[in-house]
């Protein structure tokens, strides 16, 4: 477990804190401060992945979020995380990781045999093949392709960790904690301002972390920032998206650097940041150069080597060479040499450069005006082929196990571009830089194309005074060479195995637009989104098209800057918390009495109360319904929407809202009300009660309560903004219970004082206030409505929610003699179907008043919502399916909602069954439905043929008779009894 490739000293790892971990089953040791990648490099492990398509061996290519190759399955079981960038995994005690996308092992990956077919697997080959024979695509080809594709394996058990989402507001949000970012967040700017600095790395400093010479400045800056109460520093926090209104999304990896999150600690935290100004100090990504074999493990970006040596104290190889087109990269080489890595040579396409001079001064072998045209070795780099630029063949072979590669730097403009900022081409960098911002935002440092610690810090400070870091003369000027042609694969997208040749092929086939080339070749479509090779591919395309790189451009930048954990985006409201549970005031009573509950939107309602002797649901439901028909029952209807409408113009307003007339409603009376949408279809129904000349109480269906409230408010504030009317929801204020059955009056009378319940004094549709004697002193204030949904003599008792249970219990006590029992929504549904009352299934947004048999309600005179458009030809067509009652001819057949009405053996749908149940007053099943032409009294036949309820999903056909929807008491005498 020796770390053979550790430097003697230096780095930001804690050499006194060794950390044990496992990779592919083997135990290794690293130090705190390592990433999984740096720790494995320290142990000499270089083969760390297999490519997406060709399964070629791959090693670490970068030291950051741009990593295309070194992906692992981190952790095991329910916590397994596929495709995790090893360059970003913070080493922690007991860490377990495994390689992915290989079989059986990373070293001997049988899937790499695909490579033999590589010439066939050119870009877009899928579209040209797998078509013969036709049936083979899904049965044979696609499953194989799917199995070979994909990278790691997802966990299959529920995620044991939790996440949370926060909202934050600040004056200045700084994205990036490098030299530029630290300077941007620097005290003088941020004083009396709220600042936030998000840095995706677990250490603040960015490029500074590879610059020991700048430690003093870095530490001074951090100390100053930490001392600022109004500045929040968030390491391990990636800003993933820039949205409208200067709102940015970020995710903080709170506990990913630990084996498991400590108690009460979320694994990750999503921030929604509302920022006054945004400073983008996101740095730059170093680019690769496309040359044959540039994917061999041991080929690494120069900046990455710089940071492995300086930040992690790791020697990624023993003998190295440099292939670069800019001077910045030489600093990595020299740092690595100083750390004890032998230098095989320097290859620079430029005839001469400061870098070359410095290398010569160090006595290094240099090949100016030359290029690397190939790599030697198998799963690990053994050497290079060199030649003069543009030459053919190989002039020279170099032996080395590490190549520092640098094709220049592309500013990380992802967020700037997402914010709407256009990109401009910078010739010196041969890269895109942000131009004029459109939101309140500015890019600084390498993100703006300003390189060098000092210069970047300067640009970050934006003119504010601060003590500057030590000057570093750094020249990011690039002599753009993008590709070295030759035999072998020259990759522009390492993860998805996209080669320069694929790009040219795409162009040849007419996919020369960058967005087409991207989709045809999958260039830039991997988990790294082409951060290291994207522009190189575009440049190759430009060359093929014979235009300038800037004319080709880049594919659009989108969230997420780097992939974001699903759970973090979801936040805390998952599982049972996905939606809040809404409970009526009597819920606890129902629960104590073992009710079975049913979801109604957010509400939980009792659907029935299983009795000791009940065999199944139907026993309970029928027992409850029979009690209502024979004696009396009580049902919690508190979930119905209740809206208080008051004002001098309230009546006029409601006349517009309802299709029927409300203004004629007498004081102390209620009326059924039907609302239409403006397009003439039925919207909702309920009762309207007049409590005072200018005071109405509306009830709505449970499902539409919120929509109806908004509908009223919208019209009150727009079309009717002149009227004097106020609207308030009182759904939660009032509990409501329906006491229904022939013995309802008998059960209630002894309890009620202040209101004469006799039929004469308090007839059907009467409303009045009363006191209900629950035994307490003073009793409970209640409001009594003589309305009925069940078709029986019924009273709806409303009382402030706080008194609900007292009132409910008092009624149960008083009704005991009469045999009162509670009934749930199932029995309620049964009763209303027998009575022929419409509900949700009939008021489904597709039916008209006519369809529902309610056309007569619609005013003849006066305006109302839906009046005009309900008269459109198709809405008044007498052939429209309209409400009917349905019974199976054979009484023990079942009737199912969702069945269609067909004639004889026909398959043309003449209508459908909307609601169905087993009857208690009527033998067998009863249903409501909609039938073309509606009820022709007592039809058992349609166009001479029997009518059937067809349910092909269950291969069922039930012969029907069509009857009036009012199965019981059509003359409505019971409710008036």
């Amino acid at each position, binding site marked *: 477990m020796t770390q053979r490739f550790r430097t003697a000293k230096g780095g930001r790892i804690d050499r006194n804190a060794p950390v044990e971990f496992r990779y592919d089953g083997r135990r290794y040791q690293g130090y705190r401060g390592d990433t999984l990648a740096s720790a494995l490099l320290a142990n000499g492990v270089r083969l760390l992945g297999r490519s997406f398509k060709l399964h070629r061996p791959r090693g670490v290519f970068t030291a950051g979020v741009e990593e295309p190759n070194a992906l692992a399955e981190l952790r095991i079981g329910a*916590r397994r995380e*596929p*495709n995790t960038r090893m360059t970003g995994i913070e080493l922690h005690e007991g860490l377990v990781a495994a390689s992915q996308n290989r079989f059986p092992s990373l070293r001997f990956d049988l899937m790499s045999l695909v490579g033999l077919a590589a*010439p*066939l697997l050119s870009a877009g080959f*899928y*579209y*040209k*093949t*797998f*078509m013969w024979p*036709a049936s083979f*695509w*899904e049965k044979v080809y696609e499953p194989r392709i*799917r199995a070979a*594709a*994909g*990278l*790691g394996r*997802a966990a*299959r058990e529920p*995620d044991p960790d939790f996440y949370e989402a926060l909202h934050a507001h600040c004056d200045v949000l700084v994205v990036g904690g490098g030299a530029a970012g630290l300077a941007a967040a620097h005290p003088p700017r941020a004083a009396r301002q709220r600042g936030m600095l998000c840095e995706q790395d677990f250490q603040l400093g960015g490029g500074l972390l590879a610059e020991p010479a700048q430690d003093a400045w870095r530490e001074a800056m951090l100390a100053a920032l930490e001392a600022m109460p109004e500045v929040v520093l968030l390491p391990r926090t990636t800003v993933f*998206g820039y949205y409208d209104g200067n709102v940015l*999304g970020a995710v903080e990896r709170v506990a990913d650097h630990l084996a498991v999150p400590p108690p009460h600690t979320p694994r990750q935290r999503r921030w929604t940041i509302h920022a006054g100004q945004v400073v983008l100090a996101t740095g730059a990504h170093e680019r690769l150069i496309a040359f044959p074999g540039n994917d061999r493990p041991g080929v690494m970006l120069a900046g990455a080597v710089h940071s492995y040596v300086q930040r992690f104290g790791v020697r990624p190889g023993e003998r190295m060479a440099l292939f670069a087109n800019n001077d910045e990269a030489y600093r990595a080489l020299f740092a690595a040499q100083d750390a004890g890595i032998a230098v095989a040579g320097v290859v620079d396409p430029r005839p001469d450069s400061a870098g070359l001079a410095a290398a010569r001064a160090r006595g290094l072998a240099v090949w100016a005006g030359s290029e690397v045209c190939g790599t030697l070795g198998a799963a690990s780099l053994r050497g290079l082929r060199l030649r003069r630029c543009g030459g053919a063949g190989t002039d020279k072979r170099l032996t080395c196990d590490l190549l520092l590669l640098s094709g220049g730097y592309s500013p990380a403009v992802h967020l700037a571009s997402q914010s709407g900022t256009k990109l401009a081409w910078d010739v010196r960098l041969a890269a895109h830089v942000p131009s004029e911002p459109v939101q309140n935002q500015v890019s600084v440092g390498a993100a703006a194309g300003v390189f060098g610690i000092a210069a970047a810090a300067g640009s970050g400070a934006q003119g504010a005074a601060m003590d500057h870091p030590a000057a570093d003369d750094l020249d990011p000027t690039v002599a753009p060479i993008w590709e070295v042609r030759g035999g072998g694969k020259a990759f522009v997208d390492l993860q998805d195995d996209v080669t320069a040749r694929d790009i040219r*092929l795409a162009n*040849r*086939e*007419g996919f020369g637009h960058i967005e*087409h080339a991207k989709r*045809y070749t*999958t260039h830039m479509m991997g*988990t790294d989104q082409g951060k290291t090779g994207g522009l190189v591919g575009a440049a190759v395309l430009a060359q093929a098209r014979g235009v300038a790189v800037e004319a080709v451009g880049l594919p*659009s930048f*989108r*969230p*997420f800057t780097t*992939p974001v*954990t*699903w*759970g973090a*985006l979801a936040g805390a409201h*998952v599982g*049972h918390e*996905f*939606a809040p549970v809404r409970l009526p005031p009597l819920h606890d009573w129902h629960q104590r009495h073992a009710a079975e509950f*049913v*979801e109604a939107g957010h509400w939980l309602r009792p659907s029935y109360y299983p009795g000791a002797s009940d065999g199944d649901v139907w026993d309970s439901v029928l027992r409850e319904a029979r009690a209502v028909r024979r004696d009396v029952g009580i049902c919690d209807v508190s979930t119905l929407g209740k809206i208080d409408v008051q004002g001098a113009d309230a009546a006029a307003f409601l006349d517009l809202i309802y299709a029927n007339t409300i203004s004629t409603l007498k004081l102390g009376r209620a009326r059924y009300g039907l609302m239409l949408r*403006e*397009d*003439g*279809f039925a919207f909702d129904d309920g009762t309207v009660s007049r409590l005072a000349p200018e005071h109405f109480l509306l009830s709505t269906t449970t499902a539409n309560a919120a929509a109806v409230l908004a509908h009223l408010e919208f019209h009150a504030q727009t079309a009717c903004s002149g009227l004097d009317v106020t609207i308030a929801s009182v759904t939660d204020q009032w509990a409501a219970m329906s006491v229904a059955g022939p013995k309802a009056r008998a059960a209630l009378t002894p309890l009620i004082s202040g209101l004469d319940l006799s039929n004469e004094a308090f007839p059907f549709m009467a409303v009045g206030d009363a006191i209900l004697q629950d035994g307490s002193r003073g009793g409970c204030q209640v409001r009594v409505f003589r309305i009925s949904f069940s078709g029986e003599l019924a009273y709806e008792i409303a009382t402030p929610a706080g008194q609900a249970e007292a009132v409910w219990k008092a009624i149960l006590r008083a009704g005991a003699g009469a045999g009162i029992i509670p009934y749930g929504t199932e029995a309620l549904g049964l009763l209303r179907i027998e009575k022929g009352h419409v509900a*949700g299934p009939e008021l489904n*947004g597709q039916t008209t008043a006519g369809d529902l048999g309610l056309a007569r309600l619609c005013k003849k005179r006066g305006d109302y919502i839906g009046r005009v458009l309900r008269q*459109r*030809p198709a809405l008044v067509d007498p052939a429209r399916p309209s409400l009917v009652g349905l019974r199976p001819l054979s009484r023990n057949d079942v009737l199912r*909602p969702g*069945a269609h009405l067909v004639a004889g053996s026909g*398959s043309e749908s003449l209508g459908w069954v909307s609601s169905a149940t087993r009857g208690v007053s009527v033998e067998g099943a009863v249903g409501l439905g909609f039938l073309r032409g509606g009820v022709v009294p007592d039809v058992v036949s349609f166009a001479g043929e029997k009518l059937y309820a067809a349910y*092909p*999903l269950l291969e069922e056909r039930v012969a029907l008779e069509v009857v009036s929807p009012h199965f019981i008491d059509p003359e409505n005498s019971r409710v008036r009894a």
Partner: protein
Amino acid sequence: MHYSGLKLLTQALTGNTGWKPAWRDAVPKAHYDVVIVGGGGHGLATAYYLAKEHNITNVAVLERGRIGLGNTGRNTTIIRSNYLLPENHNFYEWSLKLWEGLEQDLNYNTMVSQRGVLNLFHSDAGQHAAARRGNAMRLSGIDAQLLDRQQIRQICPLLDLENARFPIQGGLFQPRGGTARHDAVAWGFARAADRRGVDIIQDCEVLGFEIDAGRVTGVQTSRGRIGAGRVGLAVAGNTSRLAAMAGFAVPIESHVLQAFVSEAIKPLVNTVVTFGAGHFYLSQSDKGGLVFGGDLDGWNSYAQRGSLPLVEHVFAAGAAMMPSLSRLRALRSWGGVMDMTLDGSPIIGLTPIEGMMMTGGWCYGGFKATPGSGWCHAWTIAKGEPHPRNAAFTLDRFKTGHLLDERGAGPYAWAQ
């Protein structure tokens, strides 16, 4: 050039240097018998079927940008015909039948994958609605199955059947539904149309129409005037704007719909799953990414860019449906501009302008319609009248009230 196994092999051996462009990048002629506006799936399919079914080959497809980068290039690729209303399910079933033979027809692998589409429900009311829909499909001879929890567990073991806030009660399953490779659909139709002589003209934006005595005679474009015997509109989210240029109004609002893709992973979900309790649907692409989305952001937009609250909803719904998704990572998000009609169903047919036809108002469901829409649109253009298959999708149904409101959501685009 025809694609075949042999061609693939010979090309492979010669370094793939002999492949020809999939379609010519044509330059506009002065006049075409038919000009199709919009180089998305629908426009390209229209051109293809005009040539194939009606022998009308003097056709141009005008695309303001590059073909297939509109909604065709950014949709979640679900194909199905599980609609309630006969007008809808019969049309989409026809489209599905065209999908089933498309590879051979186009000589292009559009990767039609009939892995099944599963719609979950969570309540009796949900079950009844699903049954009404499934039975309607079955009566019209379309495959549909009502699945119970056990069957659902087999098809999709990762679903949270027990502990969910809205436990899954069952599902409506269409085995023949599935997905197709969206980009390939545009490319395949373009190539096939091109091979039959259609001019595909890119970077050519239509800026206006020449209308003479109520009849269209040509189009003004960013590449000059182009004469046209007939014009077909297939511009999705831009339908209102093109209609306005022609001087008529459409009951359409443009809304943004977002979609998302996760990092590529080994096969995890083998059907298309739709969550009933929260707007969410998901499938896995052949590349391995989970492709998913949810509801509209809910306000008019022409930007292919959505907002953060919707993102939160979509991911919460996904995690509620399949708790193990929580540890995966979202790779990319984007938006598309939906042509939402005010009854949620499309418009394929005549317009008030003589010689001008349209296909539009596809809402979030028009990818599956691509072949069917192209076929019907082509017919309508060729014959000057709708085919029975698209007879119901008229522009004047809103006046007459013959609406096709699948969900009963009413004339509110954001609720459709």
